[in-house]
């Protein structure tokens, strides 16, 4: 039970991160979080990373719950987490400021990953 809760929390985290990245590549949401305009090349790169995260979440869901439940879980959680991102931007966009800053770093998400290491 605890492992299942941890897994689903992680899955929500991955999907939330993916949708937050997608949202923050749009100018009006970047402005809400105090971010600068991104170069179009970087926008493409960040959207690719977000897409990879979405695919990763689908893969994880299918591995954990099987193809039927996994696909269903992914699609329903995707709707829910996208909604959470929209509400977060509407009411407390400040909580997404760290992600906005990371997206502006010179090496973007790769740089953030390297710094963590």
């Amino acid at each position: 039970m605890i492992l299942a809760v941890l897994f689903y929390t992680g899955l929500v985290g991955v999907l939330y991160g993916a949708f937050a990245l997608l949202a923050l590549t749009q100018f009006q949401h970047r402005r809400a979080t105090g971010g600068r305009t991104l170069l179009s090349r970087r926008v493409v790169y960040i959207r690719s990373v977000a897409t990879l995260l979405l695919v990763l979440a689908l893969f994880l869901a299918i591995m954990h719950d099987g193809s039927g439940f996994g696909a269903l879980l992914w699609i329903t959680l995707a709707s829910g987490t996208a909604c959470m991102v929209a509400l977060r931007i509407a009411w407390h966009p400040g909580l997404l400021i760290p992600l906005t800053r990371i997206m502006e770093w010179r090496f973007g998400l790769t740089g953030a990953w390297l710094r963590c290491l």
Partner: protein
Amino acid sequence: MKPSTRVPVISSPVSFSIFQKSLNEAGRIHSPVWRLSLPSDRQPLARLSYREGDVFINRLVNLKTGQRLPEPETLGASGFLYPFHYSLHIRFMNIGIWCVGLAAMSMLVLCVSGVVIHRKIFSDFFTFRPGKNARRLLLDLHNLSGVLGLPFHIIFAFTGLVIFGSVYFPSGAKSVYPTLQAYFDDMSGSSFFLKPKKYDVPAVLLEIMAIQARAILGEPLGIVVVFNPGSDVARVRFIGSESHSVSGSNNTLTFDGVTGVLIGQPLELKPVMHVQRFLSGLHLIRFHHWGLRWLYFLLGLSSCLMIVSGFLFWLAARRKTQGGTFGFRIVEGLTIGCVSGIILATLAFFIANRLLPAGIICFGQPRAALEVWAFYLVWFVASLHGWFCPQRGWACQMIIIAVGAFTAVLLNWVTTGDHLLYSLMHRWLWPVAAMDMVLLASGTVALWMSLRLSVGAGERIVGSSVEQSL
């Protein structure tokens, strides 16, 4: 709604010997079919059903005691609200099913057309502006709930149509099968409604066949159906539990009821039938996955939000230009009736279930029918109220919803003793606790809404007061 069914689920395999007497009885009265649904996490009791003449006998059985439960004197949610959502309880010429099908088809069309007319679908994908003006806010809410929940809305409308595909599109089945019955027979394996020549034939015990079925299927049994019990052509079908996959179980075994010989193996489904089962399973949610069930519930709420915000936006956009027209007033009344009215009606159904004394008969109607009458009457009155008093309708009905929701929780406690804390402490009462918590949350939201709406109660226009409160 049926307090006698609140018992712990028995995890050990069921002993079929306690049902043998009922099966023998069904054979004695020449019932064409006898059916047993075994307990699951959603239904802790076994359900027995068979026909006696024109009357369909339906009883719950406590597996611990082997006793049949007394008639619950209520249709409950599964007997009233569930069939209501797909048939409206209008059985004449399947008119109810056709009406619901039309609504589902309309929803599909609206979902697709909504996407097409939403020109900035990608740039507005995460857009929600609670600080903007009321109309903008309503439109944002409508777009957000509509676009983000789009897969869910489409899946539910479409799979609802698929389930009744043979009603809406019978030409498909009729082009392949001589009759629709032949189609259903093929879908379920084969027909076992053979004409018996002799009754009171000694049969093999259910328990013996059940042991064999469990061993072959390798999973818990879900349903047992006996065709022509007690006759020389008795057939016993065991169906595996439906809870382990989205599509439900395809594992079916059939035995000769007289000799106990296995005569039917699990069906080999064609790919198209696999798809049909999967789509039906998506809609019926008979699987055991608590996380998904809650997600379904939340996304169902998002569907409601999409519909309500669509209604309100429609009204707000036309109020200045068409506010006095008859058509506008109809839509306004329907909106209140469909939104708060149906919630009130459902609460009235719950409250009547707890308040009506056992065995009551009023105007010739038994208790179960009186509960249904309470539902329809309250819905009708709420719709009329919304139509004639649109300016105060929302605030007034919201406060009644709040009172009704809290009353339902209180009555559950008073009449059954299962208060929220007690329910939370006992695993088998968690569904009751969840229902109580949802009612309390709904009551609180309705109370908050009524307070916000009361601030703008002086406004002539309902929409504007709703919008201001939002």
